[in-house]
């Protein structure tokens, strides 16, 4: 199968405009004839459901939480990028485009990234109009700060709660459409399958998490905004319910999965303690604007940080990357932290931590200024660790945080399955092999507010679809499959809890497919994952019934999917014989231990096609063509 990305012809800066003109329109009176299902209510799903409702489509919107306001986008802290150039520091659409392409280690599509940079400015305008209280300067204009991988200040923020404020903005627009009767909300629903009729996505099957009832919902198109799969590592900064299940169901129904091995390990998280930890907490990258990263120069130096004199500290990021310093991109900062700890220079009880020190910033700007910028983050850190970061440097260590991989989509954000659109973190499209800070919020909202409203119209008016009802055999079959799987999970009756198995899966992936990878380890991991999957289906214990509010059953279904998906992730990592961004294969590195790409053989998107449960998936390649940027070795020196 040929993967057609449907990138419009013509000069880069004119592609989106041209494409919007060429897309067929649906006239206002006809929009109300179309039903659209949106799964997920995060920044992508919430903004899409609201915008499609405003246009006049009828939207059914689903989420697993008790309210659409709780999607995990809410936890994003630092900010959202836009090419406004309000700071007069040399920013432009072209520069945001270039930084994002370079930050992604030249593994994303030029056309998609350029469009993202173009619409970034509209996002800020719209969010301000919604009443989002962004930080402001004394004169009343919007404030900006810097994030990793950029030398301009283009990040807009609302204290350390930018994701919360943007999500609540999208949620309020969504609620307005619910009140207007354009959107119907279905909270506490988990998607169990996609229904495909005549090769087109025509509906979904969901489980009502309160009653246990399996429900069918039909539509003219389905939009998945179901987030990323970082929880495959068990410990991650994702919310507890974040999962791969909806994406994986779609993959099994014909949507290709792209670049699953591109996982992002975020450099500034609170280090792991103990063995019963359930999740990790991120400390925003924005802290690297003022915090300085260091470790003791001598391995094994166990003195408290304030007793280590300046001359015996190694500010390794500032030293190694003088032009970006502490604000190098995430993959670079993470790998360097790991390297320092592997040399025995790590600090804290476990030796798997580095310092993030604000002493100089407090001396320079005063405690008050630092408190205003990061107060809630410092408070959160103190709550978790019982240590005061105004007095003692923070300890941080990398943790699984975000995934660049996801379902393959074309320029219209449609997957290889007709009528199935995928947006936000759930797709693979804009961040290449590494995402820059403050770009996830930008992408989610770009997809939902400014891309899908145009492209879905083109699909709906350009294709013919038979009339269907949920009595169609394809729905009956999907319900049968979902019910059987649920019963199978409840009848395993083994001796290990689902969480315990999930934790082991996480250990395998972190060890062999985490911050650095090698062929031998990946092969070993694949075997271990298969064995663990077998054990799950023989020895897991899932209490309770299917006709009830049953959180153990919810988790079991998600972990079962993670156990299958993990193998795909490892296979993809094995096939990519190069290092790029978040994927670091030890065999491919420069003399300075930086990731070494192989543009001749791997300048492509790896898209995996499901071929059946007992057959290996088939790898398809979409070549990446660069006409506007020169592929270089990424340098942040």
């Amino acid at each position, binding site marked *: 199968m040929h993967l057609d990305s449907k990138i419009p012809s013509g000069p880069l800066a004119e592609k989106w405009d041209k494409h919007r003109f060429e897309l067929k329109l649906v006239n206002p009176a006809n929009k109300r004839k179309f039903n659209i299902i949106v799964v997920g209510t995060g920044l992508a799903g919430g*903004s899409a459901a609201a915008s499609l409702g405003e246009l006049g489509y009828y939207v059914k919107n689903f989420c697993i939480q008790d309210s659409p306001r709780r999607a995990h986008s809410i936890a994003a802290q630092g900010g959202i990028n836009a090419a406004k150039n309000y700071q007069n520091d040399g920013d432009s659409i072209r520069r945001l485009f270039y930084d994002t392409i370079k930050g992604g280690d030249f593994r994303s599509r030029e056309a998609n990234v350029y469009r993202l940079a173009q619409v970034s400015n509209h996002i*800020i305008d719209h969010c*301000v109009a919604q009443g989002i209280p962004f930080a402001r300067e004394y004169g*009343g204009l919007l404030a900006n700060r810097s994030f990793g991988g950029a030398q301009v200040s283009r990040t807009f923020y609302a204290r350390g709660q930018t994701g919360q404020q943007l999500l609540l903005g999208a949620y309020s627009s969504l609620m307005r459409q619910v009140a207007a009767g354009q959107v119907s909300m279905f909270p506490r629903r988990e998607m169990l399958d996609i229904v495909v009729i005549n090769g087109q996505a025509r509906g979904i099957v969901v489980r009502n998490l309160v009653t246990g009832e399996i429900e069918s919902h039909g539509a003219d198109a389905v939009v998945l905004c179901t987030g990323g799969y970082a929880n495959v590592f068990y410990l991650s*900064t994702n919310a*507890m319910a974040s999962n791969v299940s909806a994406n994986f169901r779609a993959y099994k129904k014909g949507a290709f999965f792209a670049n699953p091995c591109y996982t992002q390990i975020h450099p500034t998280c609170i280090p792991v303690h103990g063995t019963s930890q*359930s999740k990790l907490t991120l400390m925003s990258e924005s802290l690297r604007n003022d915090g300085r990263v260091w470790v003791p120069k001598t391995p094994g130096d166990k003195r408290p940080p304030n007793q280590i004199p300046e001359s015996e500290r190694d500010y390794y990021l500032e030293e190694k990357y003088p032009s970006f310093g502490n604000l190098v991109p995430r993959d670079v900062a993470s790998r360097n932290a790991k390297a320092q700890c592997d040399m025995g220079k790590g600090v804290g009880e476990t030796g798997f931590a580095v310092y993030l020190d604000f002493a100089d910033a407090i001396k320079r700007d005063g405690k008050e200024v630092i408190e205003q910028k990061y107060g809630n983050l410092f408070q959160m850190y103190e709550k978790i660790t019982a240590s005061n970061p105004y007095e003692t440097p923070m300890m941080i260590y990398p943790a699984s945080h975000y995934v660049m991989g996801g379902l393959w989509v074309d320029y219209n954000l449609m997957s290889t399955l007709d009528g199935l659109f995928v947006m936000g973190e759930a797709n693979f499209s804009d961040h290449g092999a590494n995402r820059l800070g403050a770009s996830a919020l930008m992408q989610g909202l770009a997809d939902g507010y400014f891309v899908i409203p145009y492209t879905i119209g083109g699909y709906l008016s350009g294709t013919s679809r038979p009339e269907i009802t949920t009595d169609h055999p394809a729905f009956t079959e999907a319900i049968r499959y979902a019910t059987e799987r649920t019963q199978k999970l409840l009848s395993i009756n083994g001796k290990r*809890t689902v969480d315990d198995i999930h934790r082991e899966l996480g250990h395998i992936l972190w060890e062999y497919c985490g911050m650095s990878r090698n062929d031998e380890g990946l092969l070993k991991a694949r075997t271990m994952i298969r064995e663990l999957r077998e054990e799950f289906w023989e020895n897991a214990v899932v209490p309770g019934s299917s006709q*009830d509010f049953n959180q153990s059953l919810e988790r079991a279904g998600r972990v079962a999917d993670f156990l299958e998906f993990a193998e795909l992730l490892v296979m993809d990592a094995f096939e990519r014989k190069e290092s790029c961004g978040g994927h670091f294969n030890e065999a491919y590195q420069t003399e300075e231990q930086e990731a070494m790409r192989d543009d001749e053989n791997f300048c492509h998107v790896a898209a995996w096609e499901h071929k059946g449960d007992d057959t290996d998936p088939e790898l398809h390649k979409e070549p990446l063509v660069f006409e506007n940027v020169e592929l270089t070795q990424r340098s942040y020196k």
Partner: protein
Amino acid sequence: MTKNINVTLKVWRQKGPHVKGGFETYPATDISTDMSFLEMIDCVNEQLTLDGKEPIAFDHDCREGICGMCGAVINGRCHGQEKGTTLCQLHMRHFSNGDTIVIEPWRATAFPMVKDLVVDRSAFDQIILAGGYISVNTGGAPDANSIPIAQEIAELAMDAAACIGCGACVAACPNASAMLFTSAKISQLALLPQGKPEATSRALAMVNKMDELCFGNCSNERECEAECPKEISISNIARLNREFVKAGLVSVVK
């Protein structure tokens, strides 16, 4: 310093909205004081599962204090005794070896029981959909810097906007009033120039909806402010009252 403690839990168990509930006692043994409260419940649930019993149902998601999904009354205090803290951010270092901990769900007529510690807070969504938004469609907004907003006003709006919608204010209030929640949204939008055109209709609609949903009235008990994990101030309630009175006096919308 990290250490391990043993505590006894008295947990409210209730199979569903129409079934009688009651307290059950469970030991939580060998709990690291570095664990969060929810991780402690995870441990108890793991043991219940292995013993062939049904684990305790409780809502939770982000576990970093921002999604508003978690919440329970711990020894009579919403989200536990620590000020400005959600339940997921409460750590076991604040408890001592041998403690007995009583855990109950939010109790309010407007929050019907789902199961154990889980309640239905969809009434909050209903209040927002009555008018907790600015009516602006995607696409037509002017440049973001075209309307300057004084920094202190933006900060006040942000203080109110920090609400996570967890429901602790309702559970803490002897009248089960949703005034703090409602006033936080009304304040945020009334403070900003973008929210002014609809300020009147918004205040009337949201307050009326709150009454309709069987939330109680505010009688200045201040329990909500004391228990709010985001420390939302009751000055927002004063602002709501001003907006509401103003709306009643001048509104053409009744």
